């Protein structure tokens, strides 16, 4: 794998640190007038999501991480693993529930999601920012209540539970922001 001099790493680059793939968040140049130049780097560990702060000498280098983001189709869950397919090559990948994390509550078969691969293996799965999903369980809708601000919980076809306006019913399709879990509109 290629290496980067710490002086040339910029936000977004993926590097290896302590055996884990990381994404550069920020890189600040620090140098006493007569002294050694340093790079104060903030990196997000892509396995744990934690942000690390490290300071390197500008002459140090970091190994590039073999990390790539691919759009894939979600196929099915076999009870243990979740299966995805790259639409161009038909190549299939499987990931466990730990890799999916919160993304699992937004997964619907046939939908396209972003799968982050590390050394050819899924590292994380990111659903689209906005999804449109059908309500499968909620209290009956109250007609004529469209103007008032009340909400109620509704279970969606993928298992996620979101707060929706009172007038919605089972079978309605809603638009939701997957980053916040918030209802946006009726689709």
């Amino acid at each position, binding site marked *: 794998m290629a290496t980067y001099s710490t002086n040339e790493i*910029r936000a977004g680059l993926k590097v290896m640190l302590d055996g884990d793939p990381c994404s550069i968040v920020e*890189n600040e*140049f*620090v140098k*006493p007038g007569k*002294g050694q130049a340093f*790079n104060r780097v903030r990196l997000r560990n892509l396995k744990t999501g934690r942000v690390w702060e*490290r300071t390197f*000498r500008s002459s140090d280098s970091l190994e590039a991480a073999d990390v790539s983001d691919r759009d894939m189709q979600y196929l099915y869950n076999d009870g243990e693993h979740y299966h995805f397919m790259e639409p161009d090559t038909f190549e299939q990948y499987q990931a466990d529930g730990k890799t999916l994390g919160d993304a699992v509550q937004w997964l619907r078969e046939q939908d396209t999601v972003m799968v982050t691969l590390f050394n050819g293996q899924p590292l994380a799965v990111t659903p689209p920012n906005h999804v449109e999903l059908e309500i499968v369980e909620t209290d009956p809708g109250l007609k004529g209540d469209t103007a008032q601000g009340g909400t109620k919980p509704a279970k969606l076809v993928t298992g996620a539970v979101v707060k929706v306006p009172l007038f919605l019913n089972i079978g309605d399709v809603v638009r939701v922001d997957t980053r916040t879990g918030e209802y946006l509109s009726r689709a």
Partner: protein
Amino acid sequence: MADWQPTATLETLRRRAELMAAIRHFFALRSVWEVDVPVLAKTGVTDLNIDSIPAELNGRRHYLQSSPEYQMKRLLAAGSGGIYYLGKAFRDDESGRRHSPEFTLLEWYRPGWDEHNLMDEVSSLLSELGVVAEPVKVSYREIFQQNIGLDPHAAPLEALQQEATALSGSDFTAVSRNSCLDLLFSLGVESTLPDGLVFVYDYPLCQAALACSGKDSSGVPVARRFEAFLNRMELANGYYELTDAVEQLSRFESDLALRTAAGKSAMPVDHQLLAAMKSGLPACAGVALGVDRLLMRLLSLVDIREVLPFGIRCDVND
């Protein structure tokens, strides 16, 4: 369309013009005269951590000057008396919020003065220029010990390497004493300094650069070097100047050995400076002050490009 707009506001640039005029006025009142030494010369510096920018002139290698120091010392040896330079300096591979490869330096020399006289004059200048702060003076050892818990002059290298590794989160176990001190000072000391103007003096001998060596109040050998920090930002670096040509040559040679060991290009030694020192550089104190950084602090701006008419954008975040 090409982005032609200045990186500083016109108001900032007017303040910059006023600042330059006020600096010149300060020195005119004190009969220190301005010298406009060349920025292009056949030699650069041998420093391990400063890279001169090369320039070809009729096919011959020259360098943009990283500081006016050597040429000013030749003027001092010629009998100039007190002099100052207010102009550009250039350093390769330095770009960030506080660094620009082309920047403006104010550098001045006072024959017959020592570094403590000069710290007083730096305070007077800054107060004239609008820095409202009572200066604080502290020795390198005291501030270092307070924050790092080690004596910078006496601590064994392994102890400094361990502290640097702990503070940086990366491996400093095979790193030089100088680089460990730089790391510990930059991360562990600078950020803890109080608001206002702080002078740090009596540097470790290994960080003497172009300062004379001497002894501190407890008899420990130190470099007679000081730095000024304004709200935790390095602003000025000064020396009770080394005047001994033999010692100067030996420092150049050890610089070059360090450059070779680090895989950096060798640099030609400035023999004109050495000859001037041999003929007699008067005892003097000198200091260099970053004018762009001073303006950043006066105007509460955080990026050096906000005080430059057309800031060069070549750092990693662009």
